[in-house]
Protein backbone atom coordinates (compact mmCIF):
# COMPACT_ATOMS: atom_id res chain seq x y z
CA UNK A 1 0.00 0.00 0.00
CA UNK A 2 1.48 3.40 -1.07
CA UNK A 3 4.83 1.75 -1.65
CA UNK A 4 4.92 0.02 1.75
CA UNK A 5 4.68 -3.77 1.29
CA UNK A 6 4.75 -4.87 4.96
CA UNK A 7 1.23 -4.96 6.47
CA UNK A 8 2.74 -4.45 9.96
CA UNK A 9 3.93 -0.99 8.88
CA UNK A 10 0.89 0.25 6.98
CA UNK A 11 -1.35 -1.16 9.71
CA UNK A 12 0.60 1.05 12.16
CA UNK A 13 -0.01 4.09 9.92
CA UNK A 14 -3.67 3.15 9.51
CA UNK A 15 -4.16 2.82 13.28
CA UNK A 16 -2.36 6.13 13.91
CA UNK A 17 -4.60 7.90 11.38
CA UNK A 18 -7.73 6.22 12.79
CA UNK A 19 -6.69 7.36 16.28
CA UNK A 20 -6.42 10.96 15.08
CA UNK A 21 -9.83 10.55 13.42
CA UNK A 22 -11.23 9.20 16.72
CA UNK A 23 -9.83 12.27 18.54
CA UNK A 24 -11.48 14.63 16.02
CA UNK A 25 -14.82 12.80 16.02
CA UNK A 26 -14.86 12.68 19.81
CA UNK A 27 -14.16 16.41 20.15
CA UNK A 28 -16.78 17.39 17.58
CA UNK A 29 -19.37 15.01 19.07
CA UNK A 30 -18.86 16.22 22.65
CA UNK A 31 -17.85 19.83 21.92
CA UNK A 32 -20.43 21.32 24.28
CA UNK A 33 -20.94 18.36 26.61
CA UNK A 34 -19.76 18.48 30.20
CA UNK A 35 -19.94 15.85 32.96
CA UNK A 36 -20.49 18.53 35.54
CA UNK A 37 -22.47 21.75 35.57
CA UNK A 38 -20.38 24.58 34.16
CA UNK A 39 -19.32 27.09 36.80
CA UNK A 40 -21.42 30.25 37.13
CA UNK A 41 -20.06 33.23 35.25
CA UNK A 42 -17.69 35.21 37.45
CA UNK A 43 -18.59 38.57 38.97
CA UNK A 44 -16.44 40.24 36.33
CA UNK A 45 -18.41 38.56 33.56
CA UNK A 46 -21.74 39.46 35.21
CA UNK A 47 -20.67 43.11 35.48
CA UNK A 48 -19.54 43.05 31.89
CA UNK A 49 -22.97 41.75 30.84
CA UNK A 50 -24.67 44.55 32.84
CA UNK A 51 -22.52 47.18 31.11
CA UNK A 52 -23.36 45.62 27.75
CA UNK A 53 -27.08 45.77 28.55
CA UNK A 54 -26.78 49.44 29.52
CA UNK A 55 -24.93 50.23 26.30
CA UNK A 56 -27.60 48.44 24.32
CA UNK A 57 -30.34 50.39 26.12
CA UNK A 58 -28.56 53.68 25.46
CA UNK A 59 -28.18 52.78 21.80
Amino acid at each position, binding site marked *: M*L*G*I*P*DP*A*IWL*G*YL*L*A*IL*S*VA*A*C*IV*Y*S*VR*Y*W*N*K*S*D*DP*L*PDPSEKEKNWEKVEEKINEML
Partner: protein
Amino acid sequence: MNTFTLGLVVILYLLLIAYLGYVGYRKTKTTKDYLLAGRDSHPFIMAMSYGATFISTSAIVGFGGMAGKFGMGLIWLVFLNIFIGIFIAFVFFGRITRRVGLNLDAHTFPEFLGNRFQSKAIQIISGLIIFVAMPLYAAVVLIGGARFIESIFQIDFTMALIFFTLVMASYVIAGGLKGVMYTDAAQGTIMFVCLFFLLVFSYFKLGGVSSAHQALTNMAGMVPTDLAAQGHLGWTAFPKINSAWWWILTTNIILGVGIGVLAQPQLVVRFMTVKSSRELNRAVMTGGIFIFVSTGFVYTIGALSNVFFYSETGKLALDAVGGNVDKIIPEYINKAMPEWFIYLFMIALLSAGMSTLSSQFHTMGSAIGRDVIEKIFPRTGLNTMMIARLGIVFGVVISLLIGYQLPMGIIARGTAIFFGICAATFLPAYIASLYWKRVTRSAALWSIVSGLATSVFALAFLHKSESLPLGICKALFGKDFLIDKFPWMIIDPLMVALPVSVFVLILVTFVSRPPEKEFLDKCFK
Protein backbone atom coordinates in the same frame (compact mmCIF):
# COMPACT_ATOMS: atom_id res chain seq x y z
CA MET B 1 23.98 29.34 7.79
CA ASN B 2 24.23 33.04 8.62
CA THR B 3 24.89 33.48 12.36
CA PHE B 4 23.59 37.06 12.35
CA THR B 5 20.23 36.07 10.82
CA LEU B 6 19.95 33.13 13.18
CA GLY B 7 20.80 35.38 16.15
CA LEU B 8 18.08 37.80 15.09
CA VAL B 9 15.50 35.03 14.78
CA VAL B 10 16.46 33.64 18.19
CA ILE B 11 16.22 37.10 19.79
CA LEU B 12 12.74 37.62 18.32
CA TYR B 13 11.74 34.20 19.59
CA LEU B 14 13.12 34.91 23.09
CA LEU B 15 11.24 38.23 23.16
CA LEU B 16 8.00 36.38 22.41
CA ILE B 17 8.74 33.85 25.17
CA ALA B 18 9.67 36.64 27.61
CA TYR B 19 6.40 38.44 26.83
CA LEU B 20 4.31 35.29 27.38
CA GLY B 21 6.21 34.56 30.59
CA TYR B 22 5.44 38.10 31.74
CA VAL B 23 1.73 37.67 30.93
CA GLY B 24 1.78 34.49 33.03
CA TYR B 25 3.48 36.37 35.86
CA ARG B 26 0.92 39.22 35.74
CA LYS B 27 -1.97 36.77 35.85
CA THR B 28 -0.56 34.75 38.74
CA LYS B 29 -2.01 35.87 42.06
CA THR B 30 -2.81 32.71 44.03
CA THR B 31 -1.44 29.23 44.69
CA LYS B 32 -4.13 27.88 42.37
CA ASP B 33 -2.78 30.16 39.62
CA TYR B 34 0.81 29.16 40.28
CA LEU B 35 0.30 25.40 40.52
CA LEU B 36 -2.78 24.84 38.33
CA ALA B 37 -2.92 27.87 36.03
CA GLY B 38 -6.04 29.03 37.86
CA ARG B 39 -8.02 25.91 36.77
CA ASP B 40 -9.40 27.90 33.83
CA SER B 41 -7.06 27.17 30.90
CA HIS B 42 -8.34 27.39 27.35
CA PRO B 43 -8.63 23.92 25.70
CA PHE B 44 -6.21 24.87 22.91
CA ILE B 45 -3.58 26.08 25.39
CA MET B 46 -4.08 23.00 27.56
CA ALA B 47 -3.78 20.58 24.61
CA MET B 48 -0.77 22.31 23.05
CA SER B 49 0.95 22.54 26.42
CA TYR B 50 0.31 18.82 27.04
CA GLY B 51 1.63 17.93 23.58
CA ALA B 52 4.66 20.23 23.66
CA THR B 53 5.61 18.97 27.13
CA PHE B 54 5.20 15.38 25.96
CA ILE B 55 7.35 15.83 22.83
CA SER B 56 10.89 16.90 23.64
CA THR B 57 13.83 17.56 21.34
CA SER B 58 14.95 13.96 21.86
CA ALA B 59 11.58 12.71 20.62
CA ILE B 60 12.16 14.62 17.41
CA VAL B 61 15.90 14.34 16.88
CA GLY B 62 16.61 11.10 18.81
CA PHE B 63 13.67 8.98 17.68
CA GLY B 64 13.63 10.63 14.24
CA GLY B 65 17.26 9.55 13.85
CA MET B 66 16.39 6.09 15.10
CA ALA B 67 13.78 5.85 12.33
CA GLY B 68 16.59 6.78 9.93
CA LYS B 69 18.57 3.83 11.24
CA PHE B 70 15.85 1.23 11.80
CA GLY B 71 12.93 2.36 9.66
CA MET B 72 9.20 2.92 9.91
CA GLY B 73 8.46 0.40 12.71
CA LEU B 74 8.42 3.41 15.05
CA ILE B 75 5.00 4.31 13.63
CA TRP B 76 3.59 1.98 16.29
CA LEU B 77 4.97 4.35 18.90
CA VAL B 78 3.09 7.17 17.16
CA PHE B 79 -0.11 5.12 17.23
CA LEU B 80 0.28 4.43 20.98
CA ASN B 81 1.24 8.04 21.68
CA ILE B 82 -2.01 9.22 20.09
CA PHE B 83 -4.32 6.42 21.15
CA ILE B 84 -3.07 5.97 24.72
CA GLY B 85 -1.23 9.25 25.29
CA ILE B 86 -4.10 11.42 24.05
CA PHE B 87 -7.38 9.59 23.46
CA ILE B 88 -7.34 7.17 26.41
CA ALA B 89 -5.51 9.69 28.62
CA PHE B 90 -7.96 12.56 28.04
CA VAL B 91 -11.22 10.62 27.77
CA PHE B 92 -10.74 7.91 30.38
CA PHE B 93 -8.21 9.52 32.73
CA GLY B 94 -8.38 13.26 32.24
CA ARG B 95 -12.06 13.89 32.90
CA ILE B 96 -12.22 11.84 36.07
CA THR B 97 -8.83 13.11 37.28
CA ARG B 98 -10.05 16.69 36.93
CA ARG B 99 -13.26 15.96 38.85
CA VAL B 100 -11.65 13.98 41.69
CA GLY B 101 -8.77 16.47 41.87
CA LEU B 102 -11.21 19.35 42.25
CA ASN B 103 -13.32 17.49 44.85
CA LEU B 104 -10.20 16.79 46.91
CA ASP B 105 -8.57 20.18 46.27
CA ALA B 106 -5.42 18.61 44.79
CA HIS B 107 -2.85 20.95 43.23
CA THR B 108 -0.19 18.43 42.18
CA PHE B 109 -0.04 14.79 41.12
CA PRO B 110 1.42 13.59 44.47
CA GLU B 111 -1.23 15.63 46.29
CA PHE B 112 -3.88 13.98 44.11
CA LEU B 113 -2.67 10.51 45.14
CA GLY B 114 -2.16 11.58 48.76
CA ASN B 115 -5.64 13.10 49.12
CA ARG B 116 -7.34 10.29 47.22
CA PHE B 117 -5.81 7.68 49.55
CA GLN B 118 -5.94 9.96 52.63
CA SER B 119 -2.23 9.46 53.14
CA LYS B 120 0.39 12.09 53.83
CA ALA B 121 3.05 9.38 53.38
CA ILE B 122 1.92 8.69 49.80
CA GLN B 123 2.09 12.38 48.96
CA ILE B 124 5.54 12.84 50.50
CA ILE B 125 7.00 9.63 48.98
CA SER B 126 5.55 10.44 45.54
CA GLY B 127 6.91 13.98 45.76
CA LEU B 128 10.33 12.68 46.71
CA ILE B 129 10.37 10.09 43.90
CA ILE B 130 9.55 12.82 41.39
CA PHE B 131 12.08 15.22 42.86
CA VAL B 132 14.86 12.61 42.84
CA ALA B 133 14.12 10.98 39.46
CA MET B 134 13.04 13.99 37.42
CA PRO B 135 16.35 15.93 37.45
CA LEU B 136 17.86 13.04 35.51
CA TYR B 137 15.21 13.46 32.82
CA ALA B 138 15.57 17.25 32.99
CA ALA B 139 19.36 16.97 32.70
CA VAL B 140 18.94 15.14 29.37
CA VAL B 141 16.89 18.01 27.93
CA LEU B 142 19.04 20.69 29.59
CA ILE B 143 22.33 19.31 28.28
CA GLY B 144 20.77 18.71 24.86
CA GLY B 145 19.56 22.33 24.71
CA ALA B 146 22.89 23.73 25.83
CA ARG B 147 24.83 21.59 23.31
CA PHE B 148 22.47 22.84 20.64
CA ILE B 149 23.06 26.51 21.56
CA GLU B 150 26.81 25.84 21.81
CA SER B 151 26.94 24.40 18.30
CA ILE B 152 24.78 26.94 16.48
CA PHE B 153 26.28 30.04 18.12
CA GLN B 154 29.79 28.64 18.52
CA ILE B 155 29.94 29.69 22.18
CA ASP B 156 31.41 27.97 25.23
CA PHE B 157 29.30 25.05 26.57
CA THR B 158 29.21 26.38 30.16
CA MET B 159 28.05 29.78 28.91
CA ALA B 160 25.37 28.12 26.80
CA LEU B 161 24.24 25.98 29.73
CA ILE B 162 24.00 28.95 32.12
CA PHE B 163 22.22 31.12 29.55
CA PHE B 164 19.71 28.40 28.66
CA THR B 165 19.02 27.60 32.33
CA LEU B 166 18.56 31.26 33.30
CA VAL B 167 16.11 31.93 30.46
CA MET B 168 14.07 28.84 31.35
CA ALA B 169 14.16 29.30 35.10
CA SER B 170 13.17 32.98 34.96
CA TYR B 171 9.79 32.50 33.35
CA VAL B 172 9.00 29.27 35.21
CA ILE B 173 9.81 30.78 38.61
CA ALA B 174 7.99 34.03 37.88
CA GLY B 175 5.02 32.88 35.83
CA GLY B 176 4.28 29.49 37.42
CA LEU B 177 2.11 27.10 35.41
CA LYS B 178 0.40 29.96 33.57
CA GLY B 179 3.76 31.17 32.25
CA VAL B 180 4.74 27.58 31.42
CA MET B 181 1.49 26.83 29.57
CA TYR B 182 1.36 30.08 27.58
CA THR B 183 4.93 29.60 26.37
CA ASP B 184 4.28 25.88 25.73
CA ALA B 185 1.33 26.73 23.50
CA ALA B 186 3.43 29.16 21.42
CA GLN B 187 6.32 26.69 21.25
CA GLY B 188 3.97 23.83 20.30
CA THR B 189 2.51 25.93 17.48
CA ILE B 190 5.99 26.64 16.09
CA MET B 191 6.84 22.91 16.26
CA PHE B 192 3.59 21.98 14.51
CA VAL B 193 4.02 24.41 11.62
CA CYS B 194 7.67 23.44 11.04
CA LEU B 195 7.09 19.69 11.10
CA PHE B 196 4.05 19.98 8.86
CA PHE B 197 6.06 21.89 6.28
CA LEU B 198 8.95 19.45 6.65
CA LEU B 199 6.87 16.43 5.62
CA VAL B 200 5.06 18.14 2.75
CA PHE B 201 8.29 19.54 1.33
CA SER B 202 10.09 16.18 1.78
CA TYR B 203 7.44 14.25 -0.17
CA PHE B 204 7.54 16.94 -2.86
CA LYS B 205 11.33 16.66 -3.07
CA LEU B 206 11.29 12.86 -3.17
CA GLY B 207 8.73 12.66 -5.97
CA GLY B 208 5.47 12.06 -4.07
CA VAL B 209 4.20 9.76 -1.36
CA SER B 210 4.14 6.39 -3.16
CA SER B 211 7.37 6.87 -5.10
CA ALA B 212 9.25 8.01 -1.99
CA HIS B 213 8.05 4.94 -0.06
CA GLN B 214 8.76 2.63 -3.02
CA ALA B 215 12.30 4.01 -3.33
CA LEU B 216 12.85 3.27 0.36
CA THR B 217 11.37 -0.24 -0.01
CA ASN B 218 13.75 -0.89 -2.91
CA MET B 219 16.69 -0.15 -0.61
CA ALA B 220 15.96 -3.19 1.62
CA GLY B 221 18.92 -5.07 0.14
CA MET B 222 21.30 -2.35 1.39
CA VAL B 223 20.71 -2.96 5.11
CA PRO B 224 24.17 -3.22 6.71
CA THR B 225 25.01 -6.74 7.88
CA ASP B 226 25.32 -5.80 11.57
CA LEU B 227 21.79 -4.31 11.54
CA ALA B 228 20.42 -7.24 9.54
CA ALA B 229 21.80 -9.52 12.27
CA GLN B 230 19.70 -7.56 14.80
CA GLY B 231 16.53 -8.25 12.82
CA HIS B 232 16.48 -5.25 10.43
CA LEU B 233 14.53 -6.32 7.31
CA GLY B 234 14.42 -2.94 5.53
CA TRP B 235 13.17 0.57 6.31
CA THR B 236 9.56 -0.12 5.33
CA ALA B 237 9.36 -3.45 7.19
CA PHE B 238 8.78 -4.40 10.83
CA PRO B 239 11.82 -6.15 12.37
CA LYS B 240 12.11 -9.95 12.38
CA ILE B 241 10.08 -11.46 15.23
CA ASN B 242 12.13 -12.39 18.35
CA SER B 243 15.19 -10.56 17.06
CA ALA B 244 17.11 -8.10 19.28
CA TRP B 245 15.65 -5.04 17.53
CA TRP B 246 12.13 -6.54 17.69
CA TRP B 247 12.40 -6.84 21.49
CA ILE B 248 13.81 -3.32 21.85
CA LEU B 249 11.12 -1.85 19.61
CA THR B 250 8.22 -3.66 21.20
CA THR B 251 9.15 -3.51 24.90
CA ASN B 252 11.44 -0.51 25.36
CA ILE B 253 10.05 1.93 22.85
CA ILE B 254 6.48 1.01 22.04
CA LEU B 255 5.33 -0.24 25.44
CA GLY B 256 7.81 1.59 27.67
CA VAL B 257 7.29 5.03 26.19
CA GLY B 258 3.76 4.47 24.84
CA ILE B 259 2.29 3.29 28.14
CA GLY B 260 4.70 5.23 30.36
CA VAL B 261 3.04 8.46 29.28
CA LEU B 262 -0.08 7.75 31.33
CA ALA B 263 1.60 8.26 34.68
CA GLN B 264 3.73 11.32 33.92
CA PRO B 265 3.17 13.80 36.77
CA GLN B 266 3.82 16.85 34.55
CA LEU B 267 1.13 15.65 32.12
CA VAL B 268 -1.47 14.41 34.64
CA VAL B 269 -1.48 17.80 36.37
CA ARG B 270 -2.66 19.42 33.13
CA PHE B 271 -6.01 17.65 33.37
CA MET B 272 -6.66 19.71 36.50
CA THR B 273 -5.95 23.02 34.78
CA VAL B 274 -9.30 23.29 32.97
CA LYS B 275 -12.59 24.39 34.47
CA SER B 276 -14.80 21.56 33.18
CA SER B 277 -14.74 18.32 31.22
CA ARG B 278 -16.09 20.27 28.24
CA GLU B 279 -12.64 21.84 27.81
CA LEU B 280 -11.01 18.40 27.90
CA ASN B 281 -13.46 17.11 25.26
CA ARG B 282 -12.45 20.01 23.03
CA ALA B 283 -8.73 19.55 23.73
CA VAL B 284 -8.68 15.91 22.51
CA MET B 285 -8.77 16.99 18.86
CA THR B 286 -5.89 19.47 19.14
CA GLY B 287 -3.81 16.98 21.14
CA GLY B 288 -4.35 14.11 18.66
CA ILE B 289 -3.48 16.17 15.59
CA PHE B 290 -0.45 17.72 17.31
CA ILE B 291 1.06 14.38 18.33
CA PHE B 292 0.45 12.87 14.89
CA VAL B 293 2.28 15.71 13.19
CA SER B 294 5.07 16.12 15.72
CA THR B 295 5.97 12.43 15.96
CA GLY B 296 4.46 10.63 12.95
CA PHE B 297 5.77 13.15 10.44
CA VAL B 298 9.30 13.26 11.79
CA TYR B 299 9.65 9.45 12.09
CA THR B 300 8.50 9.09 8.48
CA ILE B 301 11.03 11.71 7.39
CA GLY B 302 13.75 9.99 9.44
CA ALA B 303 13.22 6.77 7.49
CA LEU B 304 12.86 8.58 4.13
CA SER B 305 16.10 10.50 4.71
CA ASN B 306 17.84 7.33 3.48
CA VAL B 307 16.37 7.87 0.01
CA PHE B 308 17.59 11.47 0.00
CA PHE B 309 21.10 10.73 1.29
CA TYR B 310 21.51 7.78 -1.06
CA SER B 311 20.52 9.80 -4.10
CA GLU B 312 22.75 12.74 -3.07
CA THR B 313 25.81 11.00 -1.63
CA GLY B 314 25.45 7.32 -2.47
CA LYS B 315 25.41 6.55 1.28
CA LEU B 316 22.76 5.48 3.79
CA ALA B 317 21.62 8.18 6.25
CA LEU B 318 23.60 6.68 9.12
CA ASP B 319 26.80 6.48 7.09
CA ALA B 320 26.32 10.00 5.70
CA VAL B 321 26.41 11.44 9.23
CA GLY B 322 29.34 9.37 10.46
CA GLY B 323 27.30 6.83 12.43
CA ASN B 324 25.74 9.31 14.89
CA VAL B 325 21.96 8.67 14.96
CA ASP B 326 21.27 12.08 16.55
CA LYS B 327 22.75 13.86 13.54
CA ILE B 328 20.46 12.31 10.91
CA ILE B 329 17.54 14.77 11.26
CA PRO B 330 19.66 17.97 11.65
CA GLU B 331 21.88 16.95 8.73
CA TYR B 332 18.84 16.15 6.58
CA ILE B 333 17.38 19.60 7.35
CA ASN B 334 20.71 21.24 6.48
CA LYS B 335 21.09 19.43 3.19
CA ALA B 336 17.51 19.01 1.93
CA MET B 337 15.60 22.09 3.11
CA PRO B 338 15.67 25.73 1.89
CA GLU B 339 17.87 28.02 4.00
CA TRP B 340 15.05 30.08 5.53
CA PHE B 341 13.52 26.86 6.87
CA ILE B 342 16.74 25.89 8.65
CA TYR B 343 16.39 28.96 10.92
CA LEU B 344 12.79 28.13 11.68
CA PHE B 345 13.61 24.51 12.39
CA MET B 346 16.30 25.57 14.86
CA ILE B 347 13.62 27.53 16.70
CA ALA B 348 11.31 24.51 16.56
CA LEU B 349 13.98 22.32 18.15
CA LEU B 350 14.68 24.95 20.79
CA SER B 351 10.93 25.13 21.45
CA ALA B 352 10.66 21.36 21.84
CA GLY B 353 13.40 21.36 24.47
CA MET B 354 12.19 24.46 26.31
CA SER B 355 8.56 23.36 26.51
CA THR B 356 9.51 20.01 28.04
CA LEU B 357 12.08 21.51 30.38
CA SER B 358 9.86 24.30 31.70
CA SER B 359 7.25 21.73 32.78
CA GLN B 360 9.92 19.56 34.35
CA PHE B 361 11.22 22.50 36.41
CA HIS B 362 7.69 23.39 37.49
CA THR B 363 6.84 19.80 38.44
CA MET B 364 10.07 19.36 40.39
CA GLY B 365 9.53 22.62 42.25
CA SER B 366 5.94 21.89 43.17
CA ALA B 367 6.88 18.33 44.22
CA ILE B 368 9.60 19.39 46.65
CA GLY B 369 7.76 22.55 47.76
CA ARG B 370 4.10 21.63 47.99
CA ASP B 371 4.38 17.86 48.50
CA VAL B 372 7.48 17.40 50.61
CA ILE B 373 8.57 20.54 52.50
CA GLU B 374 5.09 21.89 53.15
CA LYS B 375 3.88 18.48 54.37
CA ILE B 376 6.87 17.77 56.60
CA PHE B 377 7.28 21.35 57.89
CA PRO B 378 3.80 22.89 57.80
CA ARG B 379 4.86 25.92 59.84
CA THR B 380 7.61 27.43 57.71
CA GLY B 381 5.91 30.82 57.62
CA LEU B 382 6.22 30.90 53.83
CA ASN B 383 3.28 30.59 51.45
CA THR B 384 3.00 27.72 48.96
CA MET B 385 3.94 29.88 46.00
CA MET B 386 7.17 31.00 47.67
CA ILE B 387 8.06 27.43 48.70
CA ALA B 388 7.35 26.16 45.16
CA ARG B 389 9.55 28.94 43.72
CA LEU B 390 12.39 27.95 46.05
CA GLY B 391 11.75 24.31 45.08
CA ILE B 392 12.17 25.18 41.40
CA VAL B 393 15.49 26.94 42.10
CA PHE B 394 16.63 23.87 44.03
CA GLY B 395 15.49 21.53 41.23
CA VAL B 396 17.24 23.61 38.56
CA VAL B 397 20.53 23.53 40.52
CA ILE B 398 20.30 19.74 41.01
CA SER B 399 19.58 19.21 37.29
CA LEU B 400 22.59 21.37 36.41
CA LEU B 401 24.84 19.42 38.78
CA ILE B 402 23.60 16.10 37.41
CA GLY B 403 24.20 17.33 33.88
CA TYR B 404 27.77 18.23 34.81
CA GLN B 405 28.66 15.34 37.07
CA LEU B 406 27.04 12.15 35.84
CA PRO B 407 28.61 10.22 32.96
CA MET B 408 26.91 10.69 29.57
CA GLY B 409 26.09 6.96 29.46
CA ILE B 410 23.60 7.40 32.32
CA ILE B 411 22.32 10.83 31.27
CA ALA B 412 21.51 9.46 27.82
CA ARG B 413 19.17 6.96 29.49
CA GLY B 414 17.52 9.61 31.68
CA THR B 415 14.25 9.82 29.74
CA ALA B 416 13.74 6.06 29.64
CA ILE B 417 14.65 5.73 33.34
CA PHE B 418 12.18 8.43 34.37
CA PHE B 419 9.35 7.13 32.16
CA GLY B 420 9.92 3.58 33.42
CA ILE B 421 10.07 4.53 37.09
CA CYS B 422 6.94 6.70 36.84
CA ALA B 423 4.92 4.05 35.04
CA ALA B 424 5.89 1.16 37.34
CA THR B 425 5.58 3.25 40.49
CA PHE B 426 2.47 5.34 39.91
CA LEU B 427 0.41 3.80 37.12
CA PRO B 428 -1.35 0.96 39.02
CA ALA B 429 -2.17 3.19 42.02
CA TYR B 430 -3.28 6.04 39.74
CA ILE B 431 -5.60 3.87 37.63
CA ALA B 432 -7.03 2.24 40.77
CA SER B 433 -7.55 5.65 42.39
CA LEU B 434 -9.89 6.51 39.50
CA TYR B 435 -11.63 3.24 38.72
CA TRP B 436 -11.41 0.87 41.69
CA LYS B 437 -13.22 2.11 44.76
CA ARG B 438 -12.23 -0.98 46.80
CA VAL B 439 -8.50 -0.15 46.59
CA THR B 440 -6.99 0.78 49.94
CA ARG B 441 -4.43 3.23 51.26
CA SER B 442 -1.95 0.47 52.24
CA ALA B 443 -2.31 -1.18 48.83
CA ALA B 444 -1.51 2.08 47.03
CA LEU B 445 1.47 2.75 49.29
CA TRP B 446 2.92 -0.76 48.90
CA SER B 447 2.28 -0.75 45.16
CA ILE B 448 4.24 2.51 44.84
CA VAL B 449 7.10 1.24 47.01
CA SER B 450 7.29 -2.19 45.30
CA GLY B 451 7.10 -0.63 41.83
CA LEU B 452 9.94 1.72 42.70
CA ALA B 453 12.08 -1.01 44.30
CA THR B 454 11.60 -3.42 41.38
CA SER B 455 12.31 -0.66 38.84
CA VAL B 456 15.54 0.32 40.55
CA PHE B 457 16.55 -3.36 40.84
CA ALA B 458 15.80 -4.02 37.16
CA LEU B 459 17.68 -0.88 36.10
CA ALA B 460 20.74 -1.69 38.21
CA PHE B 461 20.92 -5.46 37.72
CA LEU B 462 18.90 -6.64 34.70
CA HIS B 463 18.66 -4.09 31.90
CA LYS B 464 21.97 -3.83 30.05
CA SER B 465 21.51 -0.22 28.86
CA GLU B 466 21.46 1.07 32.46
CA SER B 467 23.29 -1.64 34.42
CA LEU B 468 26.37 -1.21 32.23
CA PRO B 469 26.90 2.57 32.79
CA LEU B 470 25.76 2.35 36.45
CA GLY B 471 28.30 -0.40 37.16
CA ILE B 472 26.64 -1.55 40.42
CA CYS B 473 26.04 -5.08 39.14
CA LYS B 474 29.62 -5.35 37.95
CA ALA B 475 30.97 -4.14 41.31
CA LEU B 476 28.81 -6.56 43.33
CA PHE B 477 28.60 -9.65 41.12
CA GLY B 478 31.44 -9.24 38.65
CA LYS B 479 29.16 -9.17 35.58
CA ASP B 480 27.30 -6.44 33.70
CA PHE B 481 23.82 -7.93 34.19
CA LEU B 482 22.49 -10.77 36.32
CA ILE B 483 20.56 -12.85 33.74
CA ASP B 484 22.59 -13.33 30.60
CA LYS B 485 19.96 -15.41 28.81
CA PHE B 486 18.46 -13.58 25.77
CA PRO B 487 16.25 -11.49 25.80
CA TRP B 488 16.28 -10.62 29.54
CA MET B 489 19.06 -8.05 29.27
CA ILE B 490 17.15 -6.00 26.68
CA ILE B 491 13.58 -6.27 28.00
CA ASP B 492 12.42 -2.92 29.40
CA PRO B 493 12.49 -2.77 33.25
CA LEU B 494 8.85 -1.68 33.08
CA MET B 495 7.90 -5.16 31.85
CA VAL B 496 9.28 -6.57 35.12
CA ALA B 497 8.30 -3.81 37.57
CA LEU B 498 4.76 -3.08 36.38
CA PRO B 499 3.40 -6.62 36.96
CA VAL B 500 4.97 -6.57 40.44
CA SER B 501 3.31 -3.30 41.47
CA VAL B 502 -0.04 -4.43 39.98
CA PHE B 503 0.16 -7.74 41.85
CA VAL B 504 1.04 -6.01 45.14
CA LEU B 505 -1.81 -3.52 44.69
CA ILE B 506 -4.39 -6.29 44.19
CA LEU B 507 -3.02 -8.54 46.93
CA VAL B 508 -2.81 -5.86 49.63
CA THR B 509 -6.22 -4.43 48.70
CA PHE B 510 -7.91 -7.73 49.55
CA VAL B 511 -6.16 -8.12 52.90
CA SER B 512 -6.75 -4.56 54.10
CA ARG B 513 -9.85 -2.66 55.20
CA PRO B 514 -11.77 -0.91 52.41
CA PRO B 515 -12.11 2.89 52.47
CA GLU B 516 -15.21 4.52 53.96
CA LYS B 517 -18.19 5.04 51.70
CA GLU B 518 -18.65 8.70 52.78
CA PHE B 519 -15.12 9.53 51.68
CA LEU B 520 -15.56 7.79 48.33
CA ASP B 521 -18.82 9.69 47.79
CA LYS B 522 -16.92 12.92 48.39
CA CYS B 523 -14.20 11.89 45.90
CA PHE B 524 -16.54 10.95 43.06
CA LYS B 525 -19.48 13.31 43.60
